[in-house]
């Protein structure tokens, strides 16, 4: 076997390798575009223009990014505890149920406390739905990956049943609830700016974005500045050592999955309370899986997650413009890029380590002239 690698310098580890990995994902995606018979550079131009070319595009980009920050954080917090939560999708979906139930039945709450209560409802339902796989992982030794996959489908079945048979607005064909009252809604930025006389194009970009940023800060404080965060990271690094340190991995597992489910509920705040203003079928639409790519790309750090979420926001919004400019490149391209990011930044993250290390070693070994 080959000799063990020398450790890379810190800057290469933190910045260079992740960048190389993500670059590889985009280069391969470029080849896919080329194979379809379109110009990759023109595609990138169309994509970026669609996402960032005007205020409307930026609004939509940040609206998508908000959802991705929530799902990214949800997946990332589990990464820190050494858990792989594939269930963010289903937890966000059930979170929507919590938001809708509060918004529809707690109308007696004064003013915008209703919106706050609905957001809490989303977080609680998301957490409760994550609690079962978390408990089973912690105390019944069943693997969280398998159980959360199952729970995504169970969530889908529950919501399908409830929306079609129970929650549907009477006399309505579509499986959706009645619209929420105004005080249950998370205000959109264009409405708020209108109060100050600033006109901003109508986009679903709403205050949930600030909530997402607050969650990022709280995430950072929790993971790196509190005892619980230390326990989470210790369990993730070495559960056996954690036990010797007086930490209960089972307890930490349950708490982490609860937090993860609550963060997933943020998607409901953004999409249901901030945009749709009623509960609809399949509103999560794969955002939970984007969270996996975001968390891997952002290396489970809030700053990285914000950057990765905005990048995916650009891809989702720009992908729409791209599919109009180049009909051959449907929006499925975005899922392909997402997959390649997970492949190169996640599964094959060490593939470029050896070449990069060799390259760096050769450069530093050159004798001074």
């Amino acid at each position: 076997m080959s000799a063990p690698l020398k450790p890379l310098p810190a800057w290469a580890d933190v910045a260079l390798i992740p960048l190389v990995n993500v670059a590889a994902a985009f280069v391969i995606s470029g080849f896919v575009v080329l194979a379809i018979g379109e110009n990759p550079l023109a595609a990138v131009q169309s994509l970026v223009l669609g996402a960032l070319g005007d205020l409307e595009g930026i609004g939509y980009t940040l609206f998508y990014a908000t959802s991705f920050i929530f799902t990214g954080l949800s997946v990332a917090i589990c990464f820190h505890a050494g858990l792989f939560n594939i269930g963010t999708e289903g937890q966000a979906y059930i979170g929507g149920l919590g938001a809708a139930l509060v918004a529809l039945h707690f109308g007696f709450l004064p003013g915008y406390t209703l919106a706050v209560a609905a957001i809490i409802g989303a977080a609680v339902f998301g957490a409760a739905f994550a609690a079962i796989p978390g408990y089973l992982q912690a105390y019944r030794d069943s693997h969280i990956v398998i159980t959360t996959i199952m729970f995504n489908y169970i969530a889908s079945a529950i919501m399908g049943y409830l929306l079609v048979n129970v929650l549907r607005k009477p006399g309505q064909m579509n499986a959706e609830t009645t619209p929420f009252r105004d005080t249950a809604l998370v205000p959109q930025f264009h409405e708020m700016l209108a109060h100050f006389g600033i006109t901003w194009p109508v986009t679903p970009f709403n205050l949930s974005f600030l909530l997402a940023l607050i969650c990022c800060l709280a995430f950072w404080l929790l993971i790196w500045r509190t005892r619980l965060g230390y326990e989470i990271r210790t369990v993730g690094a070495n559960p056996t050592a954690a036990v010797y340190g007086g930490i209960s991995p089972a307890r930490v597992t349950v708490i982490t999955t609860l937090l993860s489910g609550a963060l997933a509920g943020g998607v409901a705040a953004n999409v249901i309370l901030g945009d749709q203003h009623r509960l609809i079928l399949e509103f999560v639409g794969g955002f939970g899986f984007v969270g996996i790519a975001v968390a891997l790309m952002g290396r489970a750090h809030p700053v990285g997650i914000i950057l990765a979420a905005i990048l995916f926001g650009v891809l989702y919004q720009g992908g729409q413009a791209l599919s109009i400019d180049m009909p051959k490149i449907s929006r499925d391209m975005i899922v392909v890029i997402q997959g390649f990011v997970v492949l190169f930044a996640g599964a094959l993250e060490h593939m470029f380590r050896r070449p990069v290390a060799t390259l760096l070693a050769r450069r530093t070994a050159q004798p001074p002239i």
Partner: protein
Amino acid sequence: MEWFDAFIVVFASGMRLAVPLILACLAGLWSERSGIVDIGLEGKILVGAFGSAAVATVTGSMWLGLLAGVAAAIVVSLIHGYASIDQRANQIVSGTAINMVAGGLTALIGNAIWSQGGRTPQLPAEAQFGAIKWPFVNEIGALPIVGPIYQHLISGHDIVTYIAFLLVPLTYWALYSTRFGLRLRAVGENPAAVDTAGISVRRLRYSAVVICGILVGLAGVYLALGQTGYFQPHMSAGRGFIALAALVFAKWRPWPALATCLLFGFLDALAIRLQGVELPVIGPVPVQAIEALPYILTVILLAGFIGKAIPPRASGIPYVKER
């Protein structure tokens, strides 16, 4: 007798719905028994289905389609193998990536070529696998009890269905009665011991990954060329994950895998049959409850309430040879 005939019809439909599950489940069994966890079955079914439908559309030959579908699934399997075996990747992450890339790429290419939103054109009947009629089907079919069983359950399926059912005893025999099978199971339990015996862990695991690709590719071929006659984006509709659930439910054993897949297929057929039916007492049947039953049963099993599902000991753990 009427209920019996109705039962046979539902069971036969369940059998057909179980075919892709059986193939994908056996694929997962081979892979996971060698220590490679595979949650990318869903994506590989799609790749197999797309490859076979695309090539059958272009060439008009179902056999070339079958080869292409299986070959495409093997390629994707090898990517998972490379990540899991040589790169020692997190196998869950790799499987997730494969599901995303496969789901997106098949729809993207299908749309780029045929411009029907990712759907491939409907294949003519001669480019699909047709039902094989067994001898004297009409004569024996007229008999009571034995007749419907012979007519609907034994006769009248396509070649892939028979292959799928034959693969169960074949897998059982290969895993439990051959040297290769013994080694393969050993590598999933204790790769270091296999390595000590001078057998290549890497080669065994790669063989398992290729077998997995062949079987799961067939599952896709069946969906495209056996059941529907076209490819449609995301037509696997979660079957890869149901197969995964069946694998856990069957505790990674071939015969229970067959039984579980038949059960899940039967539940699926029942859900379709009971759509909109009003039952006495219960009222309209909550179809979603029946659809979710495979997942709920698997979670209950995983929770340890009905026996214990213990995966192969080394599954999911990359093997690092001692330096």
